[in-house]
């Protein structure tokens, strides 16, 4: 049906979610299933001298108690993305640690019991003889002389030192700059907190040697690959991975986790299905965290506001042990995006990936790009402040002009920003805002002792992450490819089944992919179903993250649809006794050019293809095609977000008065889904600025270990968002799409921080670490030059 692409049809996923019919991992129950509970280290750094499991094993209802030594034959988990072009010193988890733990929450023993209550009871009866070791939680301190050493192969706790750009050229540019500004930034650690925690269920059949593993995963095909090829050393064909309805991930469910492999190993050992479902407490200590950078920046600029040099040094905390793609996040996805929306002639960034006695850190919504955007969007404001220029003028002065796309920022190692018009998004934001009126209102409010502030964030990000040849081992270090595949099958009745290697855990692929399919084939969207997330029956895919499912996965579907249409035309030509070149395919009908009355519907053609009574010579039956898509470039969504705040100087409380988001995500398939993504993204990004923060004490204990302390925002913390879009199609793919899953998170954090600091500028407040809690804002005001006693 025409007009489906670009239409806000309702998500077909929602009825089952709203009515509770959706089946999540915890709803899966197998006959004879046993339950596992994991004993986790109470210490952030300790040697395991011995473990006595006898008392736990003796409890009624306990089937078995196991330690790491029982799984010495199971390989450690792989690190699948090591930083490209440099030496890495990876250390990865085992299903259960054997000798030593490097963070609080590492698994050291497991109880399998008839039910989870008994399993939990038994944990208390396991006796571990610990030898606590010195702890370091701060990434910079961990690299200093005398710091506790976590891993033998990583002197000074350095996993890798990586850099981008020419240091000498940047130093030279800094020398020549009219002004040089130095700044220190902390991008604090966050806890992803999907609504559904993690879990896995494994079943093993002795007769065939085959595993079936259900797991909460954003990438079931990759999980199968990593588990079979690396952890168990068995053929891929011996495992089926199913990700049932997955309740959000925000990146934290991309990765292979010890518990997923543990339940599989247990199922094989005990000849019974084994289930492990994470508690929220476990989710906070044992599932990956995000961000956690300590960064020093040096900026060189001309008097007219032109940014000429940017030198960045970042200590990226990777945690006590490496998660699946940890080293790639603060390198490729951070360092290579530091130019932002600006022409910066000289950029150098050095990243130290550091082990500390904290939970694993890996991709969290935005993954590297929020950290990069935070740096460059603070830079824009710092330059404005130093030169007493308007923050909008500095941005506009440095924007990459729209006629310079595709733009090569050099630090992207050959990739180019695909398309963009940064002035346009900024202008749209200013129009909606009425910037002049705001500045007047702000001046007036300051007279009355009220502190209004405005913050801008003009971002660009990298989505649709692929080209395999660019990101793969010889380039950026990614240990695989990043193409996607799809299969389109038009059944005899004309109903269409699309299977995709992408995985949907809230993104609405079942709706948006159906829209593309129905539009292309000219059929009703109700005649399309989209299947995903089971390695049996879906083609291979690398999974859903980095806003790549539309720009890569759905383009694979599109490619397949073109080939299905081509075959349908060939068959229609045969049926209509015409030449193929003369067949027009329009609105689901195939006819000879100029004779629309004599048409065959796609359903009729599909039926003819399936029945195969009358096919042209050599044509195979059925309309069916599988396509593989490896894009030539990534896509680069962009836009401008604006936040208006009022700071209560008496309490430090920040109120968001307005939030305007102008995003350009290329062509839009379903505007409602995009708006939903933008809303959720803004909320998470604003939360980093104002509320969320994982806090470890100096002993490596997570103080923000429950939702009573870790502040996930609520709807009433926000005003109504003012959203708009510009639409600059991506030339990279035939759909013109870019990606919309992370823009809100990437853009919003610096917009809020800039707004709060703008509000407090009359008080002389220079900087406040995130989250900008009322306490920190209040303290900054009290300690500022003009704020004391305000």
């Amino acid at each position, binding site marked *: 049906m025409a007009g489906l692409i670009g239409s806000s049809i309702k998500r077909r996923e929602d009825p089952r979610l709203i009515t509770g019919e959706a089946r999540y991992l915890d709803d899966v129950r197998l006959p004879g299933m046993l339950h596992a*509970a994991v004993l986790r280290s109470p210490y952030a750094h300790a040697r395991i001298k011995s473990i006595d499991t006898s008392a736990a094993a003796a409890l009624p209802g306990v089937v078995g108690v196991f330690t790491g030594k029982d799984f010495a034959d199971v390989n450690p988990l792989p690190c699948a993305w090591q930083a490209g072009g440099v030496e890495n010193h990876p250390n990865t988890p085992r299903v259960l640690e054997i000798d030593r733990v490097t963070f609080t929450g590492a698994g050291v023993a497991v109880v399998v019991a008839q039910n*989870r*209550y008994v*399993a*939990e*009871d038994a944990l208390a009866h396991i006796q571990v003889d610990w030898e606590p070791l010195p702890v370091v939680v701060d990434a910079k301190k961990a690299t200093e002389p005398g710091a506790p050493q976590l891993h033998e192969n990583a002197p000074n706790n350095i996993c890798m030192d990586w850099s981008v750009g020419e240091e000498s050229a940047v130093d030279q540019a800094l020398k020549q700059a009219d002004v040089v500004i130095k700044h220190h930034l902390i991008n604090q650690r966050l806890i992803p907190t999907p609504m559904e925690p993690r879990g896995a269920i494994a079943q093993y059949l002795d007769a065939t040697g085959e595993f079936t593993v259900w797991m909460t995963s954003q990438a079931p095909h990759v999980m199968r690959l990593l588990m079979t090829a690396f952890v168990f050393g068995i053929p891929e064909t011996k495992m089926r991975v199913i990700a049932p309805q997955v309740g959000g991930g925000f990146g934290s469910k991309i990765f292979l986790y010890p518990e997923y492999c543990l339940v599989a190993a247990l199922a094989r050992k005990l000849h019974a299905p084994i289930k492990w479902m994470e*508690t*929220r*407490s476990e989710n906070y200590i044992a599932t990956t965290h995000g961000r956690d950078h300590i960064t020093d920046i040096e900026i060189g600029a001309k008097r007219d506001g032109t940014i000429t040099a940017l030198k960045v040094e970042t200590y990226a905390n990777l945690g006590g042990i490496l998660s699946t793609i940890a080293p790639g996040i603060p390198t490729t996805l951070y360092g290579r995006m530091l130019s932002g929306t600006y022409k910066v002639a000289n950029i150098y960034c050095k990243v130290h990936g550091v082990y500390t006695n904290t939970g694993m850190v890996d991709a969290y919504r935005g993954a590297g790009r929020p950290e990069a955007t935070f740096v460059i969007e603070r830079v824009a404001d710092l330059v404005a402040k130093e030169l007493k220029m308007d923050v909008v003028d500095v941005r506009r002065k440095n924007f990459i002009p729209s006629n310079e796309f595709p733009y090569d920022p050099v630090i992207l190692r050959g990739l180019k920003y695909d398309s963009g018009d940064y002035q346009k998004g900024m202008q749209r934001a200013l129009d909606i805002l009425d910037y002049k009126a705001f500045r007047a209102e702000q001046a007036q409010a300051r007279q009355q002792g009220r502190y209004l502030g405005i913050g801008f964030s003009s971002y660009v990000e990298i989505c649709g992450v692929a080209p395999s040849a660019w990101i793969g081992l010889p380039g950026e270090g990614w240990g695989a490819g990043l193409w996607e595949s799809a299969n389109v099958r038009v059944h005899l009745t004309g109903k269409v089944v699309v299977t995709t290697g992408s995985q949907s855990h809230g993104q609405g692929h079942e709706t948006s992919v159906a829209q593309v399919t129905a539009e292309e084939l000219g059929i009703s969207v109700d005649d399309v179903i989209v299947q995903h997330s089971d390695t049996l029956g879906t083609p291979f895919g690398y999974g859903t993250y980095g806003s790549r499912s539309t720009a890569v996965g759905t383009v694979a579907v599109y490619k397949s649809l073109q080939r299905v249409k081509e075959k349908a035309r060939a068959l229609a030509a045969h049926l209509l006794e015409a030449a193929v070149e003369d067949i027009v395919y329009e609105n689901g009908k195939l006819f000879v050019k100029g004779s629309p009355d004599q048409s065959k519907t796609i359903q009729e053609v599909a039926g003819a293809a399936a029945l195969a009574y009358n096919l042209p010579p050599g044509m195979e039956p059925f309309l069916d095609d599988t396509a593989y898509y490896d894009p030539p470039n990534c896509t680069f969504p962009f836009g401008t977000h604006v936040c208006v705040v009022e700071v209560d100087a*008496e*309490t*430090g*409380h920040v109120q968001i008065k307005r939030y305007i988001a102008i995003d350009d995500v290329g062509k839009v398939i379903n505007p409602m889904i995009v708006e939903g993504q933008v809303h959720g993204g803004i909320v998470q990004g604003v939360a980093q600025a*104002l*509320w969320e923060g994982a*806090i470890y*004490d100096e002993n490596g204990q997570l*103080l*923000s270990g*429950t*939702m*009573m*302390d*870790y*502040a*996930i*925002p*609520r709807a009433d*913390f926000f005003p109504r968002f003012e959203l708009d879009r510009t639409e600059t199609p991506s030339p990279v793919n035939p759909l013109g799409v870019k990606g919309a899953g992370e823009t809100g998170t990437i853009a919003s954090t610096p917009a809020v921080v800039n707004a709060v600091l703008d509000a407090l500028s009359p008080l002389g407040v220079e900087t406040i670490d995130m989250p900008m*809690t*009322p*306490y920190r804002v*209040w*303290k900054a005001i009290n300690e500022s030059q003009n704020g004391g006693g305000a």
Partner: protein
Amino acid sequence: MWPANFEYVRASTPAEAIDLLSQNDGAKLLAGGHSLIPALKLRLNEPALLVDIGRIAALKSISANGTLKIGALSTHAEVSGSSTVKGYASALAQAADHIGDPAVRNFGTIGGNIAHADPASDPPTVLTAYDATIHIQGASGARTVKAADFFVDLFTTDLQSNELVTAVEIANQGTSKSAYAKLSHPASRYAVVGVCVVLQMNGSTCQSARVAVGGATVKAVRSPSAEAALAGSSLDSAALDAAASAVMKDIQDYVTGDVSFPSDYRHAMAGVYLKRAVRQAIS
């Protein structure tokens, strides 16, 4: 989040609940469960027996007969929605309306809340400011205690192990004006600081005042100095500044804090929120 084993009995009368408490060491009462169940799930508490009093109808009523009497099992939603409560003690209805979220307010009870005595919870502060009377029933009969004496310390009350709260009672406050001002913790919505004021007004002059502070303190505490600073004043900004300083002085031995909201901040905010509560009460 898997509790340890416990036995469960549903009591149909207060007397039956008290018997069960007397006969079973370490038994805990279950009312709305919004403090107890999370503690069980985290295994911070492992009672052998839960005595469920949640369905004892006699403890649910809200009535006014010269004084306001709220049954212990009245939920926060019932308290906040009650026109009777609004008429007698508007700050209590207002505070109850900002506890947690709707699910919490529909299950959590006023009796369970005060028996738990979380220092960051709102009702203890408000009841202390209203000088409420807590009705308690035990094996040896019924007794009453004033709110200020009921809250002893962090998570500690005057309740004995075999007693239960049956009701809270607030005297007729006449034409007084009251308000509760709270800085909510962004995660839990408990009070980082909460201040409740009850002001007896004569025209624009404050005849007398009661002030209580929670959240910032290890328990809900009255502030006699702040009350004295407000009494007799026209509640102008000089009086409010004096009261703010006074409340900070009165609570200094009780101030508490954590890594997100340290005690110096909470201490200062007690003064700020006192002023806000007064302004709100007379607005």
